[in-house]
Structures are given as structure tokens and as C-alpha cells.
């Protein structure tokens, strides 16, 4: 880098200027949301949205968390937050495990019609939610889990299964067949091989799957609105209710803070887990 010629230097400068400008352009909405959430209502009313807050304070955040109103309930988004957590944890855990198990069975064991199952799953991954909403409402209400926590969890697992299975199948198909054969000769059965040999090898893919499912399920609005029921409305549904509540003055700062609070968990997850995407754990597992 030390010996750049003058034209190259100018070119590099232009490149960076362009990149920074582009980054700023895409960051503007986020910056506006953040700065608005830190302003008072008077400040929002009197000045342009691009003016930074004169005395930033978190009262809107506090209100969004504790006291924002959805209709007549004024409990803030923390109610929805805990609902989302209650939906998220079992849905993610079960759908990832089910996907791993399916993928393992389909890639390393002789399953009758495995190719057909795989094709069906692939198709399943492409079917838009809206198409199956109504039948699914009928099915869940028939078996009595419509509009309940188990109901929304079951729906999330169901919708997660195709992609999770394909993800894990492709990962396991890349592991050498002889690993499973060796374990079979060692006397291990289907479950033991899964638990002792396959799962420990799957740390990276488990993390990827967990991130995919966590973001998907946390950001879900449609399924939560329809299948969760009033008692278990996830954060996204509650956020929408807060933003569209039209009684009295519209508290933009509270709405912005609520939106940020809702978006925060997946964001934190990305920051925390990025490095696992690049690590290769099976390196050197087989041939030298």
C-alpha cells in the first residue's frame, strides 16, 4: 500500500468517498429513528427530523418499554417482549433439533422414498405462508391449539422444518459416510450416533440454524398475529398496535423507541455470533 501513484491515490479517495456516502444514505432512516427516540415531543414538533436531539434522554424508551398503550392496555412493549421470548425459545430449539434429526436421517440412513421427501421439503420451502393460512387455522382449531402458545409454537416449527431439514441434510451429506459406518461397527445405534458423533460436529451449523430461526421467528408478524391469540401476542404485533393506536397525540419518540427495542434482539444476536460463521470445525477430521 505504500507506493500508490498519484492517480491511484485519487481513485482510492473517490472509492472511499462513494462508499461512505452510500453507507450514510442507507443509515439515514436508522439515524433518524434513533435521534427521534431520544427527543422530546416538543422538539420533534418544532424542528426538522434531521436535527440531532438537543438534550438526548431515554424517557421515551422507558415509556415504550413500560407504559406505551395498545388500545386500552398501557403496559408497554415489555409484555410483547416476554411473549416473544416464550414463543421463540421452544420454537427455535425444537425446529432446529427436528431439522438436525431429519437431515441426519435423510443423509446417512436408508429412508424409503428419501428423494421424494426431500423434493416435498424443497417445495415446502417455497410455498408462501398465505396459501396455507386458512387450512392451518382450521387444523389448529380442530385439534384445539388455535390461538394459544402451543399453537403458535407448533406453527413455527412446521414452517421452519423444510429449510432446517435441507440445511442440515446438506451439511451432513458433506460428512464422510465412513464416520457413521465406523460408529455402527462400534455398536452405536441411530440415536447414539446422532448424539455422540453428529451433534458435536454440528456446532457451526447449529449456530447458523439458530440465528436463521431466531431472526425469522422474532421478526414474524403474520403468524404471531393469527395463531398466538391475544394473550400471547409477540412484540411485533404489539409494536404495530402501538404505532396504529390513534387516540390522542401520536408519540413519535415512543413509537421509534418501541421499534428499536423490537429490532434489538436479532441485531445483538448477529453481533454476538458472527465469528462462528467462518470457523471450520471438521478441518482435519478425515483424510490428512
Amino acid at each position: 500500500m505504500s507506493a500508490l501513484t498519484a492517480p491511484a491515490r485519487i481513485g482510492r479517495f473517490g472509492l472511499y468517498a462513494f462508499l461512505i456516502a452510500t453507507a450514510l444514505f442507507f443509515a439515514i432512516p436508522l439515524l433518524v429513528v434513533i435521534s427521534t427516540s431520544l427527543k422530546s415531543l416538543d422538539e420533534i414538533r418544532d424542528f426538522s427530523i434531521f436535527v440531532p436531539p438537543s438534550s438526548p434522554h431515554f424517557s421515551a424508551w422507558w415509556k415504550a418499554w413500560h407504559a406505551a398503550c395498545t388500545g386500552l392496555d398501557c403496559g408497554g412493549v415489555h409484555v410483547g417482549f416476554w411473549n416473544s421470548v416464550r414463543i421463540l425459545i421452544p420454537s427455535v430449539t425444537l425446529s432446529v433439533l427436528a431439522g438436525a434429526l431429519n437431515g441426519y436421517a435423510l443423509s446417512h440412513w436408508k429412508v424409503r422414498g428419501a428423494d421424494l421427501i426431500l423434493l416435498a421439503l424443497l417445495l415446502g420451502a417455497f410455498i408462501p405462508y398465505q396459501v396455507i393460512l386458512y387450512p392451518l387455522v382450521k387444523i389448529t382449531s380442530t385439534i384445539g391449539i388455535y390461538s394459544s402458545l402451543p399453537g403458535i409454537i407448533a406453527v413455527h416449527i412446521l414452517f421452519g422444518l423444510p429449510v432446517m431439514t435441507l440445511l442440515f441434510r446438506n451439511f451432513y451429506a458433506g460428512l464422510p459416510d465412513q464416520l457413521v459406518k465406523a460408529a455402527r461397527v462400534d455398536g452405536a445405534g441411530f440415536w447414539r450416533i446422532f448424539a455422540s458423533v453428529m451433534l458435536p460436529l454440528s456446532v457451526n451449523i447449529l449456530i447458523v440454524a439458530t440465528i436463521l430461526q431466531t431472526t425469522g421467528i422474532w421478526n414474524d408478524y403474520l403468524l404471531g398475529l393469527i395463531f398466538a391469540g391475544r394473550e400471547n401476542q409477540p412484540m411485533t404485533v404489539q409494536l404495530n398496535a402501538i404505532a396504529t393506536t390513534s387516540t390522542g397525540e401520536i408519540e413519535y419518540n415512543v413509537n421509534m423507541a418501541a421499534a428499536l427495542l423490537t429490532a434489538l434482539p436479532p441485531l445483538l444476536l448477529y453481533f454476538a455470533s458472527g465469528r462462528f460463521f467462518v470457523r471450520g470445525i471438521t478441518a482435519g477430521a478425515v483424510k490428512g
Partner: protein
Amino acid sequence: MIGVVVRGLSKSFGPVQALRGIDLVVEPGDFVVLLGPSGCGKSTLLNAIAGLDDIDAGSVQIGGVDVTQREPSERGIAMVFQSYALYPTMTVRRNLSFGLRVRSVPKTEIERRVAWVSELLQIGGLLDRKPSQLSGGQRQRVAIGRALVQQAKVFLLDEPLSNLDAKLRTEMRIELKRLHQSLGATIIYVTHDQIEAMTLATRIAVMRDGRIEQYAAPDVLYERPATLFVAGFVGSPGMNFLSGSLGRASTPVARIETDTIPLDSYPFRAAFAEGGEVVLGIRPEHVSLADPGARGSVIEAETLFIEPMGADTLVWFQYGSQRISARLSPQRARGLSGKVRLALDIDQISLFDPTTERRL
């Protein structure tokens, strides 16, 4: 000690017939090598004996018990894989003990056996490492160790040395031979490397297209190959094949090019068919430079090129329309050129029918 008997084993993968009615008897304590080019079915046969693949027809007996329907773990076998297939997330110690832990062997017994194996294979210092921290040779030892701790009666090895470099392969070959002699276990070993087969085996089964071409001791295989395929596959450098026809002077002869080679001492297996086509096989080491006045079969050939191999030198000659190679001492081969008289050792030849490819 325990033997293995395979009867009428067939297996196809879709339209491809991998095994066509294999019969194989492995005597207790034998070191049997399944030898053949890739795709001949040797690994499929091993997997079938292990019970890892379903078979279409036939039976497998181990130690006199029919195990055809049994799981691999219930057959009293242990196996070493080509890719080693060590469990990547487990330490060497846990790799070795995995099978024993699965079978709920008491802890003290597990420790005793792991200690025994790690001493036997000199892997004691590696017990707490992961497979990724081992060299190829070390992984190979661990893979063999994992089979040994099972104290199985029959060991199945699937090309265990093919991922090692040449020097290490020679070392491990000696080690395997030593293990076989000290443990006295029955071993079935798959390889495409005929030197490995010749050095290790007590008996070799040469396979081709899902069939066993010949099943015999290494020296028999080398000296009296039953088919053209075996003759060509076993031995390096390969056997010379000269085509000609059978004839009769006062005794049976082979007419090759313009020469007549007497066959009076050849032990014919099949009926002698005068005028029939024949392929005469002779190994390069049985072709020598004819000294002046040499008796036996002497042919005249034109020197083509010389390949030094260290201990010996392989010299290629043009003999009429055919080629023939001779394995000579480097001193004798040096400076060879032009027309040369070659002596064929008639006691060491093999004759084949070119249509059936069988030994005459």
C-alpha cells in the same frame, strides 16, 4: 480362532451388479487380501461381510454362525476405514474407548484395553489429542487401535494404507504383518495395491467385475495365474503377453512370430488344441540376455528403451510386431542397443486361451 464363509453373495446398486455370486472361505487366522482395480466390488464385499450394506442374495457366516441378518456390531468384527473415520470431536482416548463405552464395558476394563493398545501401537503420548492434531500415520495407528480394543476375532480393513505416503506405507505394512502374527487374528484386507497384497496376504482373492478371478496363496497367484486378468494385474512390472498359435512338431510347441517355442514340459490343464490361438505370458525376470550358445528358447529382438529401477533395469525390446520387456541387472543392461538375443525361461511361462482368457 474364527473363520469367515461367504456363500453366493450378490449385490447390485440399481442397474450395476457390484457382486455376482461371491463364494469365499477365509480360514481362521488367515490374512486374506481382496485385490482388484477400483470398481471391482472388493469394498462392497467387505461392507457386506461387515453388514454395513444390505445384500441381495447369499449368506455370511462368521465363526460358523450365520450373521447375514445381524447388525455390524453383532458380528464380532472390527473395521478400519480408508479415511480412518476417527470421530473428529473426540480425543484419541475417547475414540479408542467409544465402542467399549457404547457396549457398557466396565471402566477398569476400558482403561486396561486402551493402555494395552496404546502400548502396542505406541500412541500413548497422543491419547489426549484430537484427530486433527495428528499426522496421517498417527491417525492410521489410532484407527487400527480403535479396531484392536474391540478384541474382535475378525478384522476388516478397507484400503487402510492408501492415504499414507510411500515410506510410511512400507512401515505400516510391516507393522500390520507383525500385528497379524502376534495377535493371530483373522484379517480381511481390501487393496488395489498388488505389492501390499503380495507382502501381507496368506491368501489373495483377485476380483474383477464383481467376481473372484482367482483365490490362492500369493506365490501361486504370481507363478500360476489362472486367468489373463490375474496375470496382468499381479506383478510389477507387468507380465509380457506374446500372442501366437499352438502347434505340434514332435512335441507341443507355440509358434510366435517366426520362432517355435517347445512346450513339452508345460503342464497343460486343458486339452491341447493344435492350431488354436494362444497367449504366452512370461514375466520380465524370466527373460534374460542369451549367452552365446545358450540352450532353450532364444529369440531375437531389437532394443527399444531402457528403464532403470534401481536394483534392476527394465529393458524393452521390439520382437517382430510385439513388445517384450526383460528385467536385467543394471550392469548387463547398460549400453544395450540394436539386435539382441533373448532367452525365455520356458519353465516359468503361463499359457492362456485368448478367447476364454483362462489358463491352458
